[in-house]
């Protein structure tokens, strides 16, 4: 200690510009150069020798004392390691911080979806007449009505008066047809056949047209004033009555007008007998009588049923998924289900047969072509490429599940095997290998199901344990921990340095100005320092973090703001330190000398005062970097600092310590990262401590 104290004194004196010591120092350094060739220490020393104590420059003294301190050396080594790790490591390390790793692994995937077919597909029959959309669109509701009423037939009258009938073939198949309407004639009984207001232009027939001649004749009659009297025309008796300005032409008695030909002798009497019933049969044909105005009845012969379309809720599952079943095939198949069971389509004949309650369609050679199901089972992506066997099994399983109230909700079906590399497995013959896979049925909504199974899938390699590829494993986003440690270290160190740099700039300027000028400037600036001393750091940073979250700020921008905030919140102690130092330095002789020689204020501050404050500044800055790193990582740990995708040590720990399970499971992630933070901060503190002792050995004692 003694030796260094002597040196210390020398250093002090030289810095005060003492000429004697200046000269001694110059001599010493000259001697040092002269003796540099010889072995130091070998030379015998005399008591009055100026070389008795080796004189070093202040800087070298500090260095020497620093390296004598073991703790400081440890800290320095740690720091060098951290810098190499964080700044050089990423250059040589192959992965980037946001590089996501993938792997093939078994994952419960949504393999297929099953939807109960509850609406009806319409298959128009060939050559069928058009049907109004109004009726067509309500088809499903008609069927619902039919089901509710338990009816086998359902009559619908369209707005244009055409009648349709829906007939149930069987469960899931309905046919829609209309009748061939063949008007036979019109029967009149005291019928009001026409009305007019006297002019021919307003003359209208109520139903049957009696021709222009009759119209003209009636016009004449009205003109000649024969009203209320019966008159004859073409063998029938008519009468014109007048109510106010309206003339009505009435056909008196009964009459029959045939549109084409008379069906036979007593047809008319058959009509007359059945006027109230509305329908009758005559010579094996069905007729219908429909009222069409007062005393006018249309007689219509009911012809053949004309099928329009067939509706079915059956789903066609084709065996060959590459082939789309033709429309004709579908239509004919549906029509044949409850009928003959055989049909022809596209020139081939097919047969429908039943097996275990399911319907299958085979061609004439006996090969299965398609199966009929009541669930639309598709791959989850929507493609209809699943094999019939799967669809069949799945449908049975769903029905079983519904029957057992969900107790049995799994089924097993072989699917093509995928190996660990995500490739399909083929045997030596080149055929795909199948393996039994358990499927689980999940109900999404009533009638909609998701079939899930474990399958080898290409997925993010999350939380992978340490391996050869990723030495520290991967995190929850499949990113390499080691790479993120390196980049996280970069951010932490950079934040530390930039923030401390900011603090020092502000602190030195404010503290320097305050200390140098004194008086009211000092008072004012020190009150400002007091204010910043009082502003609580963590709360403000937390509020800012929450605010940035709400603004969804860009991670880099956020980082900048955080550094600025940390700098602004942290300069006050440095300003105080600088001011204190300058206040005491200002009173010393060398400053008075400077003042006396008329050195500029700026030069006095920056050339003479600030360099004398530098040792303390360096110590404070070194320690400060450590505490800023703690600040930053704590904020990041709370999720309010640096955000994803940027890596930082705090965030990395936060992401894996949410629960006790995670704490145990991911110890290999957060413990190394935590120790990195600790070691870095410890290193800065050791170095700072060592520097302090080196700069000012008195403090150490």
């Amino acid at each position, binding site marked *: 200690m003694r030796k260094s104290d002597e040196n210390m004194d020398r250093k002090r004196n030289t810095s005060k510009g003492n000429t004697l010591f200046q000269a001694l120092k110059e001599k010493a350094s000259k001697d040092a150069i002269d003796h540099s060739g010889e072995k130091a220490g070998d030379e015998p020393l005399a008591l009055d020798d100026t070389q008795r104590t080796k004189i070093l420059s202040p800087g070298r003294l500090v260095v020497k004392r620093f390296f004598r301190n073991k*703790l400081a050396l440890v800290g320095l080594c740690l720091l060098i390691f951290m810098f190499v790790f964080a700044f050089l490591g990423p250059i040589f390390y192959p992965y980037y911080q946001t590089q996501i790793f993938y792997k093939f692994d078994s994952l419960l995937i949504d393999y297929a979806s099953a939807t109960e077919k509850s609406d009806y597909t319409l298959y128009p029959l060939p050559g069928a007449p058009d049907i109004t959309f109004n009726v067509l669109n309500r088809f499903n509701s008609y069927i619902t009505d039919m089901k509710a009423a338990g009816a086998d037939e359902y009559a619908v009258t369209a707005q244009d008066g055409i009648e349709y009938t829906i007939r149930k073939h069987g469960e899931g198949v309905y046919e829609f047809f209309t009748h061939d309407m063949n008007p036979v004639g019109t029967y009149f009984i005291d019928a009001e056949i026409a009305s007019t207001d006297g002019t021919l232009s307003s003359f209208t027939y109520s139903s049957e047209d009696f021709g222009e001649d009759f119209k003209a004749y009636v016009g004449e009659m009205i003109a000649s004033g024969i009203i209320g009297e019966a008159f004859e025309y073409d063998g029938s008796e008519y009468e014109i009555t007048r109510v106010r300005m309206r003339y009505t032409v009435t056909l008196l008695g009964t009459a029959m007008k045939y549109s084409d030909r008379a069906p036979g002798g007593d047809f008319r009497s058959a009509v007359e007998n059945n006027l109230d019933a509305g329908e009758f049969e005559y010579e094996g044909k069905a007729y219908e009588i429909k009222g069409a105005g007062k005393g006018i009845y249309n007689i219509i012969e009911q012809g053949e049923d004309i099928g329009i379309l067939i509706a079915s809720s059956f789903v066609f599952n084709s065996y060959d998924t590459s082939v789309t079943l033709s429309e004709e095939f579908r239509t004919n198949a549906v029509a044949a289900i409850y009928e003959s069971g055989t049909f022809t389509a596209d020139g081939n004949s097919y047969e429908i047969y039943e097996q275990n309650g399911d319907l299958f369609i085979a061609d004439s050679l006996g090969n299965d072509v398609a199966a009929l199901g009541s669930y639309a089972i598709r791959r989850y992506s929507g493609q209809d490429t699943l094999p019939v066997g799967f669809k069949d099994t799945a449908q049975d399983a769903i029905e079983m599940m519904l029957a057992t109230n969900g107790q049995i909700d799994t089924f097993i079906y072989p699917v093509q095997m995928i190996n660990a590399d995500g490739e399909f497995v083929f045997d030596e013959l080149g055929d795909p290998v199948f393996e039994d896979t358990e499927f689980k049925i999940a109900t999404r909504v009533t009638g909609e199901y998701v079939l899930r199974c474990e399958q080898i899938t290409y997925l993010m390699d999350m939380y992978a344990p340490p391996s050869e590829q990723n030495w520290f494993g991967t995190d929850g986003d499949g990113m390499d921990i080691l790479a993120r440690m390196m980049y996280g270290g970069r951010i932490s160190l950079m934040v530390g340095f930039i923030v401390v740099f900011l603090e020092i700039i502000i602190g030195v300027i404010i503290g320097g100005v305050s200390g140098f000028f004194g008086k009211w400037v000092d008072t004012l600036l020190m*009150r400002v320092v*007091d*204010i910043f*001393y*009082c*502003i*609580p750091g*963590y*709360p*403000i940073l*937390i*509020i*800012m*973090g*929450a*605010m940035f*979250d*709400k*603004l969804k700020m860009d991670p880099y921008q956020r980082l900048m703001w955080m550094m600025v905030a940390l700098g602004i919140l942290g300069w006050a102690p440095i300003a105080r330190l600088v001011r204190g130092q300058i206040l005491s330095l200002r009173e010393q002789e060398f400053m008075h000398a400077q003042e006396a020689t008329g050195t500029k204020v700026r030069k006095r501050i920056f050339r003479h005062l600030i360099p004398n404050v530098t040792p303390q500044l360096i110590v404070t800055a070194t320690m400060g970097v*450590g505490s800023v790193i*703690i600040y930053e*990582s*704590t904020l990041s*740990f*709370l999720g*309010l600092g640096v955000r994803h995708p940027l890596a930082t040590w*705090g965030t990395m*720990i*936060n992401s894996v*310590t949410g629960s*006790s399970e995670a*704490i*145990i499971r991911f*110890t290999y992630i*957060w*413990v190394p990262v*935590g120790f990195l*933070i*600790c070691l870095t*901060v*410890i290193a*800065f*503190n*050791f170095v700072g*401590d060592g520097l302090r002792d080196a700069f000012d050995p008195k*403090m150490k*004692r």
Partner: protein
Amino acid sequence: MIEFLSKRILMGIVILFFVMLVVYAVMYSLPMSYVERMAYDLSARPGSLKSSAEWLAELNAKYGFDQGILGGYFIWLGSAFKGDFGESWQWTVDVTAKFKEVIWYSFALTATVFIFEIIIAVPLGITAARKQYSTTDYSITVIALIGISLPTFFTATLLKLIFAVHLGWFDMFGMQGRNYLLLDDFGKFMDLCAHMVLPAMTLTIVSIGPLMRYTRTNMLEVLNSDYIRTARAKGLSERKVINHHAFRNTLLPLITILGGTLPALFSGALITETIFAIRGIGYTSFYSMINGDIPFTMFYLMFIAMLTLLANLIADVLYAVVDPRVRVN
């Protein structure tokens, strides 16, 4: 003395005024639509009898967000001066009521830590100073530095791993065990204590470092002073020298600095309480802050600023009280 005190207190009030102005400015610069959204959220809360427009009008009237920074600040200051800090948005009770509810948990925790800190750090610091440059000294110095360097959250997580997960002695979070309601009063108290152990340990570990170093530095200074040399020279036993002469003199700066930390007993532990879910002032204000609860946050920040000012004042006064030499100046 009285003149000094009143001057300091007045200065403290002025500083507090400006601190809160800065804080208010930060709060004010929250996103512009923030108050509107808050009003909407408040009106959507169950039990809210006001529409969002009414809430907005009320919030603006109360916190003056439509008055500009200065105008708004004076409105806030006016109501705060009357002791009305408004109703917390996060906790839906009066700010002061919430404060009274949670402050004692924080105080209990921090006071325990304070006591343990003194018990551990002061003797260790003195031992280190007595045996300067020995292995003991080095290890104590290193431990102190490590304590300073440990981030709170990492210490907390490590302790959780050891004591909560592996040993299973304590719960990881919270203040009550799952059978809390079945316990009698004493059992409830013990349960609460058990939940405070890990937070207290965390805080003690991260806070003993500075005190240890401070004690060591001061003890070294005292041990190197002339009166200790005199005491030794006149043949006093080493025990007497240390206990009577050195320690008592070391106490002076210690009392000053410890007295200065007394107000901090009420400030809670923001990070530790949040990590361990101890419902003290730190935990409460953390969630207030991240959820933009302006009334509570303003109150909390004012409280902290006041505590800091008070701490400085106490330290200065103690400095004069404890050491008569200072009083001369």
